[in-house]
């Protein structure tokens, strides 16, 4: 007796593709740390064998100090200051806001996040403002040491 030949339909096996896609999603979900809005992109100092620690600091104010200068010798460059992700403001304005924040929270800590190309005088000015407001706890932002040290 002759057996009727069965029709084989062409099917697209999606299982490996779904496997790979899920693997990619899991990878991205694990490695993604959503950048804080207060960390404005800039060139952060990268000292040799940095001792900078990636610790969580509460009750903090981040002062971003950016520069418009291309090199330390460029005297036409200006420093641009801002508190966290807010728009740039003058040092007087920053001082007033620090005073208000300090009166609300005496344990306030200040994090100075300055561009590495900035002239020292510009960062020094921020430190003076912080010291005038009697805030002792200050941290400087630098890159954490990599695997190469």
């Amino acid at each position, binding site marked *: 007796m002759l057996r009727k030949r069965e029709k084989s339909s062409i099917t697209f096996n999606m299982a490996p593709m779904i496997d790979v896609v899920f693997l990619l999603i899991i990878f991205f979900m694990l490695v993604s740390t959503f950048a804080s809005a207060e960390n404005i992109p800039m060139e952060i100092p990268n*000292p040799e064998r940095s001792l900078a*620690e990636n610790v969580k600091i509460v009750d903090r104010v981040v002062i971003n100090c950016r520069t418009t200068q291309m090199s330390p010798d460029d005297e036409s460059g200006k420093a641009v200051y801002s508190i966290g992700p807010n728009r740039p403001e003058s040092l007087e304005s920053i001082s007033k806001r620090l005073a208000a924040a300090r009166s609300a929270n005496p344990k306030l800590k200040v994090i100075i996040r300055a561009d590495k190309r900035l002239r020292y005088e510009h960062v020094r000015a921020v430190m003076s403002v912080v010291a005038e407001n009697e805030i002792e706890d200050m941290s400087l932002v630098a890159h954490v040491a990599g695997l190469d040290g």
Partner: protein
Amino acid sequence: MRSRGPSNRLQTMMDATPHTRRYRRKRKGKSPLVLNLAPMIDVTFLLLIFFSVTTTFRRAEGFLAAKLPKDAGRPVVAMPITPIIVRIEPADVGFGGYQLRVDHFVNAPATAGELVGFLREIHDQPGFSNETPVVLAATPDVAWDHVVACWNAALRANCNNISFGRQ
């Protein structure tokens, strides 16, 4: 499943209303249970595209602890110990170069890397220790990068009393 006898089946068919009969007929037809994967794949691809577009790989940032004097740097009492004053000045060595000078010491280190060993050697000398104040006095025009490099070097040399000075 246990099979019913022919009389039972006939009785059931007679009891059934036209509606239930139609319903049963429908159930009898074998429809394969298919899991519709399309929405899941849609969502999965959306997630994948979101993560691959928003992810930017950045180097981790950390904090170097520092303390500021309470009254804007004006000394209240005279310091009992002579501090180690490290002067950071710009130099014409390469792009944005710098040079170091240490007050009262002739063989000053050339770089922040050398400053670590230099400070450790000073700590071993009589009259000095880890608690000896280290003042980093940079000129206004030196790059912030070099100041942070020297601060990090002082921390590496286990200095416990580091501060910023003015030139």
